[in-house]
């Protein structure tokens, strides 16, 4: 009980001093603007790489269609990517010098999938104080089916995967934007367990039916 007056003495000046700025500069200020870029139906054309595998590098070409429910939430209804694979020096050396069986190397041939896209960040940035560009940052989560083939050819095998990632979009006009996607397909395989197929993609997105 004896401490109470001391506590009160310490607390009340703090409360009073917190009120001073409010008394001097009351109110809060926001810049409220019409959202300049709004998406509706989006068709994406992208190129990218599958950079992780030490035995090959995949050069991706992807097509996708996304429908936007709101400015924050969208569904990438379908995406399909084909990978043109280039063997690395390591793989060539293993096959040539150590007679490793080429069938031991599985490569992604193509993949399809669907994702939910959540875009909580929308902002703008100044370029050299001369122009203002708008961008958004989004997260994706969904599923994929990957077709994996041995590098020696033969029938491919299908593997399910969980896809997640994040990306950024730079708006160029109401109909055109550019996006950078960083995604990872976590592939679930009975014989190989769980392994990752990350991808980096740059795409041009054409927007139809802009919401005014």
């Amino acid at each position, binding site marked *: 009980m004896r401490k109470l007056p001391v506590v009160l003495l310490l607390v009340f000046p703090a409360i009073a001093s917190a009120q001073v700025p409010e008394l001097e500069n009351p109110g809060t200020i926001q810049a409220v603007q019409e959202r300049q870029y709004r998406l509706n139906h989006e068709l994406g054309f992208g190129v990218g790489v599958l950079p992780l595998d030490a035995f090959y590098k995949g050069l991706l070409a992807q097509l996708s269609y996304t429908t936007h429910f709101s400015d924050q939430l969208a569904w990438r209804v379908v995406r399909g990517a084909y990978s043109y694979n280039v063997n690395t020096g390591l793989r060539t050396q293993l096959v040539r010098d150590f007679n490793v069986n080429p069938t031991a190397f599985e490569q992604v041939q193509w993949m399809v999938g669907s994702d939910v896209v959540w875009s909580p960040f929308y902002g703008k940035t100044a370029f050299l104080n001369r122009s*203002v560009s708008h961008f958004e940052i989004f997260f994706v989560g969904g599923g994929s089916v990957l077709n994996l083939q041995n590098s020696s050819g033969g029938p491919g095998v299908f593997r399910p995967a969980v896809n997640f990632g994040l990306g950024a979009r730079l708006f160029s006009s109401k109909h055109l934007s550019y996006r950078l996607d960083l995604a990872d397909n976590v592939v679930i395989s009975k014989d190989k367990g769980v392994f990752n197929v990350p991808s980096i993609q740059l795409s041009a997105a054409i927007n139809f039916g802009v919401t005014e």
Partner: protein
Amino acid sequence: MKVAKLRALLLAPTLALSALLLAAAPPPPTPDKAKSKPAEPQPEAKPVPKVNPKIFDEALQDYFDGKQRQAAGKLFAYVEATAQTEENYAWAQYFLAKSLIELGLRHAGGVYLTKIARERSNPTVLPRALEELRYLTEVPHDETMIDEQVFGALDLGFLPEETAGFAHYHQGLWDLQVGSERWALIHFAKLKEGTAEASRAKFAVLVTRLKERKEASKEMVEDFLALAEDEKLSQETRNESRLAVARLRYEKRDYEGALEAYEKVQLPPLDPGRATLYLEEAWARYQLGQIHAAMGLLTTLDAPVFHNEFLPDKYLLRAMIYKDLCHYLPAKRAAKELTRRFAESLEAIREREDLTKDIRLRRAASAQGATKRAAKFLESLTLEGERVGRYAGNFGERLYAHLTKLYDLSHAEAQRIYEQRLNESVRAEADKLLRSAEQVRLMEYEVGLKLYERVKRGAKLVVPEDDAEITSAQVAYTFEGEYWNDELRDYRVRLKSRCIEEAAR
């Protein structure tokens, strides 16, 4: 009192607008103009050296080879040594003018073009010279020499249609300036309908009528509205028409209509716009009871880009808004801010000092109308005068000496005109400041009364009005003191009322 102040607020920019429009209008000639230049002992002039007539062809070759510096020296030598009656004399003057203009010596070029227009020694050169002079009128230029003495006094009978239209427009403007609308209309009637000059002439007539009449008619508003949509006018003039519509509607207490006109003012992307536009819009919104939006516009006026603007009313309006929401301490502080910020200027006015020495008043006076044009011309002459020295080596001794003398004389005259206009406009700004200071003192008194008003038993806080929700089509950026040009019209202030109402008993 408030309405009278607002009328004054709106009338002042309108008068400034009219002054801007009458671009050709120089100040009335003063009788002591000639006397102001003390007679200096003239040094004995050196004899003009004779030149080979072939120098003209060489100079033209240099000009078309892009060697304007060399061409200018040769052309000047040719002009100096040749009689006016020579066939190539006017051409030499013309290409000398072109060379000087292309070297950035616009005023010197303008002097030679003006000589061609006055002497009229070669009818084929004259239209070209007038065309070049037309371009020069779009940048800071000697208004007396070009607007008044060339376009204002030109015999219009023999000119090509386009140049004649421009001259008619300028002569009409001059008539308007001296108060003869009837004569002006005769000139304007000769302008071809649908040309840019015809639209600008209509605008000039409307502004002059607005300046002269106390009451604005409905027809006048409609005429300004029509001009606001006239594609032949520059964007700036269309915006001026919209502002005129807004001001007229405000005068008629049609605040919604005024707001609509303010919102139609189109600014280039990332252009911060004009401070007076924001302040006037803030007053219109205040009158409509949109005090949060009005406060947002006052936030805009605090942006660094408007730091040097002379807007005493800004502090008054802010104090009024705070007072209306019963934030008495901020209201008092906002009111005091005016006297604090302009303390030196107010002191200078009270002490009857030379107001042109006061930096704030001087800046405000130089920011608009005829004084602004005079200041810009003076600035351009200073720059060009410095540029002459750079070409001394190429020009040769005679042209260099001639241009140095020309720029010295022109600079002295431009300085005199600027000081004369500054003296007039600085007084208008001082009056504006004094009126605002008076209003602020009254505001401080009213706030002081409110501050110590007793709260009666049973009184309760007024239920705050709901702020407009942010819709899904909008995006909100919290303001943290960083101004973005694209946001200047979009600030919204959330400020709760602290007023207390007495409970019904």
